[in-house]
């Protein structure tokens, strides 16, 4: 991997982590309404996959969607503005954290329904195939969604039609509070791919270089017209299901153990330095830039006007 790519992967991951930390602070200050779901711990997946995507490639995301949004090159200010319920937010304060979309960058939206985005990405891939473009679609979803009917129906449809879509299952070990080891009778979710007639790849979702390599193959395969791939990234979410989750389903030992042993950002830094793709001081400079960018984005978002009043006609495109 070249230096620029490595540093960009790190920058995206660090931006996601900082965004989640800053959102948590804003939530604690009662500035964010509703709920937020932190992507901290899973940054390597969004960063490694989206590094291969162009602005005209599509993604569908999840309720835990901030990371995908950032990796698909969203503007931080408009994301914060959405969380703060401002007119300047991506969805003009109509959607909030669980529904951020940025169609200008091919982000077809976070989704509050587990597995809701899987057929939508499949349909985006159908558009690419139908129009004869080389665009691809990526559906991000969790281990919970892999047990929804949409997963089964969509993977089958994509396989029989050889659609240019990559199904990225982020196994963060918990479907809300239900542990994956209890929700699956198999240990490796990727083996399900064989049942649909597509490649299934399991990768360490903590290792951004590994995700990047596996996603590169899957995206190339889709772009070349060779059909879909199921890419399962083993991961762990550092926080609870949502902000304030009492996490009664996890022991303190488990949480602390994972958090100290499973940090894709720590790993990414070590890897970059070890492979001489960057120095500690270069990475520190990136961190400072991101911190500054984050504060500017929050300030811009907080200065924005509140969401405008609803208009009855806005729910339709043709009135």
């Amino acid at each position: 991997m070249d230096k620029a790519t490595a540093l960009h992967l790190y920058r995206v991951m660090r931006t996601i982590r900082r965004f989640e930390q800053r959102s948590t602070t804003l939530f604690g200050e009662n500035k964010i309404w509703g709920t937020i779901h932190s992507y901290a711990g899973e940054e390597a997946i969004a960063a490694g996959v989206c590094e291969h995507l162009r602005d005209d490639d599509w993604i569908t995301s999840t309720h835990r969607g901030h990371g995908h949004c950032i990796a698909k090159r969203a503007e931080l200010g408009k994301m914060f503005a959405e969380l703060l319920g401002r007119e300047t937010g991506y969805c003009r304060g109509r959607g909030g954290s669980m529904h951020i979309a940025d169609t200008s960058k091919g982000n077809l939206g976070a989704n509050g329904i587990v597995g809701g985005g899987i057929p939508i990405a499949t349909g985006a891939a159908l558009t690419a195939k139908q129009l004869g473009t080389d665009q691809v679609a990526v559906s991000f979803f969790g281990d919970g969604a892999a047990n929804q009917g949409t997963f089964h129906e969509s993977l089958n449809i994509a396989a029989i039609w050889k659609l240019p879509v990559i199904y990225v299952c982020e196994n963060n070990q918990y479907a809300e509070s239900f542990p994956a080891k209890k929700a699956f009778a198999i240990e490796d979710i990727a083996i399900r791919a064989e049942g649909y007639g597509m490649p299934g790849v399991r990768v360490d979702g903590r290792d951004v270089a590994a995700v990047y390599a596996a996603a590169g193959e899957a995206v190339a395969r889709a772009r070349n017209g060779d059909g879909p791939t199921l890419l399962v990234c083993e991961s762990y979410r550092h926080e609870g299901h949502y902000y304030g989750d009492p996490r009664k389903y996890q022991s303190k030992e488990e949480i602390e153990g994972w958090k100290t042993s499973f940090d894709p950002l720590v790993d990414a830094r070590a890897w970059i330095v070890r492979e001489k793709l960057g120095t500690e001081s270069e990475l520190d400079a990136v961190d400072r830039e991101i911190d500054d960018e984050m504060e500017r984005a929050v300030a811009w978002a907080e200065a924005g006007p509140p969401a405008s009043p609803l208009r009855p006609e806005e729910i339709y495109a043709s009135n």
Partner: protein
Amino acid sequence: MPQIRTAPLPSSGAGEDASASREMFYAEALNDALRIEMQRDPKVIVLGEDIAEHGGAFQVTAGLLAEFGPTRIRQTPISEIGLVGTAVGAALTGLRPVAELMYIDFSGLAMDQIVNQAAQNRFMFGGQARVPLVVRTQGGSGRGNAAQHSKSLEAWFTHVAGLKVVMPATPADAKGLLAAAIRDDDPVMFIEHKLLYRTKGQVPAGEHLVPLGRADVKRAGTDVTIVTWSREVLFSLEAAAKLAEEGIEAEVVDVRSLVPLDKDAILASVRKTRRVLVVHEAIKRGGYGGEIAALIAEEAFDDLDAPPRRLAGVETPIPYAQPLELGVVPQVADIVEAARNLVNG
């Protein structure tokens, strides 16, 4: 009044004289609309079960595979949420898909994609998205298909902000409304009736558009307004002919499109006749007739000589045996009696 947004695309013409019309079955008229819209716009595709060689469970897509091939007549596995969700994604990204759900009773399997995704994407995303999707389906009883293949579920969809709901009664309206629904930039539930497919009527040749949101007075009258849709329009017209023999002139308003609803046309008719009977096949409780009756009560109470009345399906799953089945949805004689009672006070 809602306007049709017509994309700047060439008229297909299809070599036909636009002023001509011919008699067609309802199913043929739908087929004609699909064919013309597919000729006109390469982004129109059809997805559904048994729609290819078989031509659809009710032959609405007959012949389209031969003309447009398997990439545009996309036959799917029996995967209702998969096929509707794929259509939602295709609509979000530039195609104009028509997804066929063979029976409206199967819509529960696809409901998340219809309700949480297609209907809400535009709003949730602050206007960034448009979802030009048509979900064609059919409902209704009268064919001995029993409880899981005979329901009238339009009220479910009228309750969802972001959907449009269309229920044509005649072949000409079926063609014109389907073409308009395909050109519309919003998700439209296009609900046919299984016993209308083999009914006949004059249908304009070539391009024919009926705007969504416009009711049609199918019969003018002075004594009572019957507001209705789908197959009950035909029953109501028969009933109106019988009522005329008794000296009662009923006006039959076919709403055609439940959402958006042509309130002005309904209120104008009610203000003229001062009496209204709302007739639908769906179960009365929670049915869309309640919405229309309430609308009339709120907006035209002082113009009424009698309370708005509803005649609708019995609260039961649709039974199998024919005499039982006929007994649970309004028949012509039921409409005659209800209208007569309303007029005679």
